């Protein structure tokens, strides 16, 4: 909690979980991330998370008009970026928002590494917290339990993107928690989704994870375009792996992915061809 006499700084209100896009991603991929995450812009970063630009919906529309959807984002992004520093006050940040009219601003350090992103709604929600305007119990507020009928979550997975690997499963886990799904069920879903996401990152070119959540069950499907699994019974055998050394060095590729998914699921179905793999699992909430 920030003390009343202390002027809130950008560091106090910014979002630290930054959704950014590597400069060599395509505009199409950036568009997908923005669609799935419902955001209107993202920092474009190079390998060491250094800010090199911003891609916005306006940039994407322009690329669409020019038939440039498969170009790398650094060809169409806005290079002249207005950014904030952690020690800027919220008042200074608001002034920048007013002056430039942008929806979101990246927060960077001296070496231009992206530390966070700030939107005006981040400021509002943090100020609400500081001023204790709403004293609603957050756990009650987010506990929707049986009030929802179904919820669909879609996530694009990029092959070989090890920095982002796991973000889809992480987002799904948060959604399930917010929907009030039981902890042990969330855990099984998270494990299955994470292993499935890692499989796409490790073995496929790209893929899509879809989760359909109802109060009774969670259905997760993962479709990828990739070389496919040659021998599914063998791949389901604990310890069997075709993962490259780089993956093994990260603690994966031990041949436990598919067996783990199967173990976490109540229903499990997988089919594969040289065009790609389709995984379909169900986890019951009771």
């Amino acid at each position: 909690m920030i003390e009343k006499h202390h002027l809130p700084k950008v560091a106090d209100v910014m979002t630290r979980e930054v959704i950014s896009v590597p400069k060599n991603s395509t505009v199409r991929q950036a568009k997908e991330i923005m669609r799935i995450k419902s955001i209107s812009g993202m920092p474009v970063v190079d390998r060491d998370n250094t800010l090199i630009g911003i891609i916005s919906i306006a940039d994407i529309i322009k690329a669409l008009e020019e038939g440039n959807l498969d170009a790398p984002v650094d060809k169409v992004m806005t290079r002249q970026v207005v950014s904030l520093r952690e020690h800027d006050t919220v008042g200074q940040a608001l002034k920048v928002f007013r002056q430039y009219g942008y929806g979101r601003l990246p927060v960077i350090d001296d070496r231009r590494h992206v530390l966070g992103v700030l939107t005006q709604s981040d400021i509002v929600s943090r100020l609400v917290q500081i001023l204790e305007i709403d004293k609603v119990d957050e756990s009650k507020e987010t506990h929707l339990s049986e009030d929802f009928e179904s919820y669909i979550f879609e996530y694009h997975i990029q092959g070989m993107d090890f920095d982002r690997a796991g973000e889809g499963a992480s987002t799904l886990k948060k959604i399930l928690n917010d929907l009030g799904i039981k902890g042990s069920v969330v855990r099984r879903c998270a494990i299955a989704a994470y292993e499935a996401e890692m499989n796409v990152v490790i073995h496929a070119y790209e893929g899509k994870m879809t989760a359909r959540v109802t109060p009774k069950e969670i259905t997760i499907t993962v479709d990828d375009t990739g070389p496919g699994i040659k021998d599914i019974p063998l791949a389901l055998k604990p310890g069997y792996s075709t993962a490259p050394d780089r993956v093994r060095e990260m603690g994966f590729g031990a041949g436990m992915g598919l067996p783990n998914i199967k173990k976490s699921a109540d229903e499990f179905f997988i089919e594969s061809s040289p065009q790609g793999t389709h995984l379909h699992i169900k986890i019951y909430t009771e």
Partner: protein
Amino acid sequence: MTLSEIRRLLKANPLTDHNLDERNAETACGADLLSDVLAFTKEKTVLLTGLIHPQVIRTAEMLDLVGVVFVRGKEPSREIIDLAQAKDIPVLCTAYPMYESCGILYKAGLGGAPLD
């Protein structure tokens, strides 16, 4: 056993900003294979690992692990520490190797998880 007790026993250095007194582990898991951690780890577990990679934090997040201790004095990158902070996973670093780290905690009363 609280993470602050683990910190004391392993002479560990906390790398994230968390109140370690409030984090309680009922068991521990020593592993360098994340798939094994994902397959066999129970709740309220602290993970000891020699693996330095952001996926360690992702795994900890998926499993709601109590915390992560990097053994053999390996220092994770800023990126890993930032991710751990963002995902609310306390991270510590100890100079003890894996075997000693596990032995010290086991001897102090932090047992393994019951077998299925």
